[in-house]
């Protein structure tokens, strides 16, 4: 039963954080290079640009959902299972989502990384 709760939490984390990552990445690409913007117009301008971005706000909601799923999961399972399993699975779903929604060029090198990480996740859970 504990295992079922742990894996349920992992599924919730993966779904919520993939949604969050895609939204946050889109938001930050819209804002642009934070370091350059900071040097140009100051921290306040950077913060305003980020906090006013609707994708950022939606992304934070999704990340908050993922965070509470993580807290819930950690009370049931080992950190060395829950944290790497959910984060690495998120990496694989993110590779797919980034290609579809963010139009990133996910080349063979990045797919290879996805396969290796997926294999690592299976072994972590074994």
């Amino acid at each position, binding site marked *: 039963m504990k295992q079922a709760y742990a894996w349920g939490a992992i599924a919730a984390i993966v779904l919520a954080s993939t949604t969050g990552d895609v939204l946050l990445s889109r938001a930050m690409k819209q804002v642009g290079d934070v370091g350059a913007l900071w040097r140009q117009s100051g921290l306040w301008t950077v913060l305003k640009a980020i906090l006013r971005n609707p994708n950022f706000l939606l992304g934070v909601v999704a990340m908050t959902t993922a965070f509470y799923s993580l*807290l819930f999961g950690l009370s049931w399972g080992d950190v060395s299972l829950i944290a*790497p399993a959910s984060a690495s699975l998120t990496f694989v779903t993110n590779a797919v989502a980034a290609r579809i929604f963010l139009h990133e*060029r996910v080349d063979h*090198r990045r797919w290879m990384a996805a396969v290796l990480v997926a294999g690592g996740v299976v*072994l972590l859970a074994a």
Partner: protein
Amino acid sequence: MTFRKYLVLAGVTLCASIGDSLLSRGMKQVGNISLNHLSDVILAVINPSVALGILLLLGFFASYMTALSWADLTYVLPATSLGYVLLTLIAKFYLHETVTTTRWIGILLISAGVGFVTQGPALTHHPAKPQPHDAEYESASAREQ
């Protein structure tokens, strides 16, 4: 990639793994949370380990957002996944969890994935329209180097 950008990636890695470990220790102190008492999960933030963990995860969030402003999502995520190796070491030596040989091999595979992706470019998707800032950024990063 400048030295400053590698520092930001290191910040993502360190804050995430140390923050997660503190959360784990705190939640073990809090105990199992029942589906019937979901409000307990909100009260869990009173625990000092959970509170410090949340503080570190805020640091993670700031450096993560910074990294995403100049690199692909599919670059930032694997590039910072060396944190799992750190997380396993913390789990073994500090939280005293059992880390089996199989899990160690899993950690190795993930590390290999990190190696693959960091050899490639950080940013692959360029917006259709040429960005007016591009030349400025390049001269700025050239100065940093």
